[in-house]
């Protein structure tokens, strides 16, 4: 079945305008790299071929009539308008085909819903507009943001190979292990989709959905958010990197060490320059999508920060809105999304960049105190 499909695809793409540009002419689903995605692919091909065969028969009869039974060829109309036998037949036969089709579909579905006994549990949280991956057993997590530069999107720079499908921190999983995903969202509904894994599951605020996969081949698998989630819905890709077990363990150790270090950084003393440098980076990933890289915003939905009452006024009010968000607006609560260090850095940055020059420093300790007093 699969070979046929590939051949048909190759034939179809060969017939159509040969090689118009560098892009490919994929016309079919890819079988993917998990057992689920392979089962889905074979279901897809089966139902596709059933449709093609039925289509050929029905359209065949129809085109025969169109060609042979024309008035211009002097064809005289028959007068039949009923035949109970054929009507029963063409009710029963499709029904039988459907039952035959439903059996493998049911089996696959049951398999997909079996989310018990996983080796690794990862909580996936959708944010406007990035993903957060929390390794539940390992006590660390990180955000995964679009890595394609804005200049490419706005056509000021040539687009790279993985345009819009590249992130700063991909989801890293070991090969050969059963991974369970617990999907949720922080704001609106998102949907986590990686075609090669055969997973598409909605991430719904306030609820957990489960999905599982097991990849046996190391590789990078790309997907996107597939539920309209606002302005930058098209700009929150998913990248999964499956690595050999050894490599995974090394990476895990690094991440845990980094998380520990991050916690220590909170207690360290920070200079203005250090905070500004780190704040600029954080601002680009967490804030710039709405408030724009130059702080000019996109009023009225996304107010400017440059010269704004909040960024140049009372420090505590600024901390409050960044940590807790503003209800009824698109301003999210970043208190749980960013580390104390990043929060301190980004607030410091906002209070001193673009000519805001308040001279205020907000330290990670202040943020920690603010959080504790709540």
């Amino acid at each position, binding site marked *: 079945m699969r070979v046929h499909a590939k051949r048909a695809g190759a034939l179809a793409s060969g017939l159509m305008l040969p090689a118009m540009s560098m892009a490919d002419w994929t016309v079919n689903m890819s079988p993917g790299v998990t057992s689920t995605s392979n089962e889905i692919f074979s279901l897809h091909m089966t139902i596709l071929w059933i449709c093609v065969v039925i289509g050929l028969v029905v359209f065949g009869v129809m085109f025969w009539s169109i060609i042979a039974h024309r008035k211009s060829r002097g064809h005289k109309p028959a007068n039949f308008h009923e035949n109970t036998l054929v009507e029963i037949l063409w009710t029963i036969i499709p029904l039988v085909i459907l039952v035959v089709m439903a059996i493998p579909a049911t089996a696959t579905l049951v398999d997909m819903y079996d989310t018990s006994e996983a080796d690794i549990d990862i909580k996936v949280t959708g944010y406007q507009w990035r993903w957060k991956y929390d390794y539940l057993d390992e006590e660390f997590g990180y955000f995964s943001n679009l890595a394609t530069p804005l200049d490419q999107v706005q056509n000021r720079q040539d687009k790279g190979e993985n345009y819009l499908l590249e992130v700063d921190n991909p989801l890293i999983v070991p090969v050969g292990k059963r991974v369970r995903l*617990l999907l*949720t969202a922080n704001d609106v509904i998102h949907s986590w989709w990686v075609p090669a894994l055969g997973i598409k599951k909605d991430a719904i605020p*306030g*609820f*957990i*959905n*489960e999905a599982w996969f097991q990849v046996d081949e190391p590789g990078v698998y790309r997907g996107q958010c597939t539920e309209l989630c606002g302005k930058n819905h098209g700009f929150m890709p998913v990248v999964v990197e499956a690595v050999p077990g050894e490599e995974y363990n090394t990476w895990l150790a690094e991440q845990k060490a980094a998380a520990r270090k991050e916690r220590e950084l909170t207690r360290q003393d920070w200079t203005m320059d250090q905070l500004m440098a780190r704040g600029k980076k954080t601002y680009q990933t967490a804030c710039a999508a709405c408030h724009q890289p130059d702080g000019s915003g996109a009023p009225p939905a996304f107010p400017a920060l440059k010269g704004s009452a909040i960024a140049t006024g009372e420090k505590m009010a600024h901390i409050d809105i960044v940590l807790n968000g503003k209800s*009824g607006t698109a301003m999210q609560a970043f208190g749980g999304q960013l580390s104390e260090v990043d929060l301190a850095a980004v607030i410091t940055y906002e209070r001193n960049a673009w000519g805001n020059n308040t001279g205020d420093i907000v330290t990670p300790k202040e943020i920690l105190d603010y959080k504790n007093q709540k």
Partner: protein
Amino acid sequence: MAENQTYYVPEQSKWPIVATVGLGVTLYGAASIMVNGNQGEPTTGAWITFLIGALIMAYMLFGWFGAVISESRAGLYSDQMDRSFRWGMSWFIFSEVMFFAAFFGALFYVRVFVVPWLGGDGDRGSTNMLWEGFQASWPLLNNPDPQAYPGPEHAVGPWGLPLFNTILLVTSSFTVTVAHHALKAGHRTKTKLWLAATIALAVVFMFVQAYEYAHAYQDLNLTLQSGIYGSTFFMLTGFHGAHVMLGTLMLAIMLIRIIKGHFTADNHFGFEAAAWYWHFVDVVWLGLFVFVYVL
């Protein structure tokens, strides 16, 4: 069906376009009140728009129904026309049933699926990890996030005022039927009395309901904002209450028409339509009593 020949096709009429303008202005005003209010802007202009629209609507209702009543009394309508009205009214009531079905459906879905899931039961029970400490119960007094939605202190029990209200409405369905039989028998005084009794029962119902709302808001902290129990409670009973008001208005108009000498023993569809509507309102209440209050 020879009476087709006399099927009444009205001449040009201004009422549809008046009604369109009225409805459009009313709802535009209503939306402006809400949007301006949310943004902390003045709502005076919006209120004026809304009231102008409402006045146009009132004018239209008097005018349009007035036209239909005078056409009917002028004998322009055939039996076939009468059947059109009957089909029209029945399907209108069916559409109302489906409107309530949406809210009942929401209530069932929330009670049977959502709240247990949030509390850690069923197919999506792992959701509970997001709401540590939350326990499912119905009526839901402690919401998953009590800070965002402080729950009510108590639910509304069924066996006090709600039971009294149930008795009122069931009785009113009975009295309106007696009035209808009296009208068919040509006993106009009896019709007036029983219809008046129906309206009185309806008015008492509304007073009780208003008292209950005040009690819920003041004493129970049960409000629209107190989570899904408050949301479903007030939306279901509130829309029912609005329909009771509309039904009462219809019955009151029928009473006025009877007093003015309208209707005959075998031609009184206006009255019947109002009675149908009243029975519908009654049946919805029974559903409410069982699913919102008792269970």
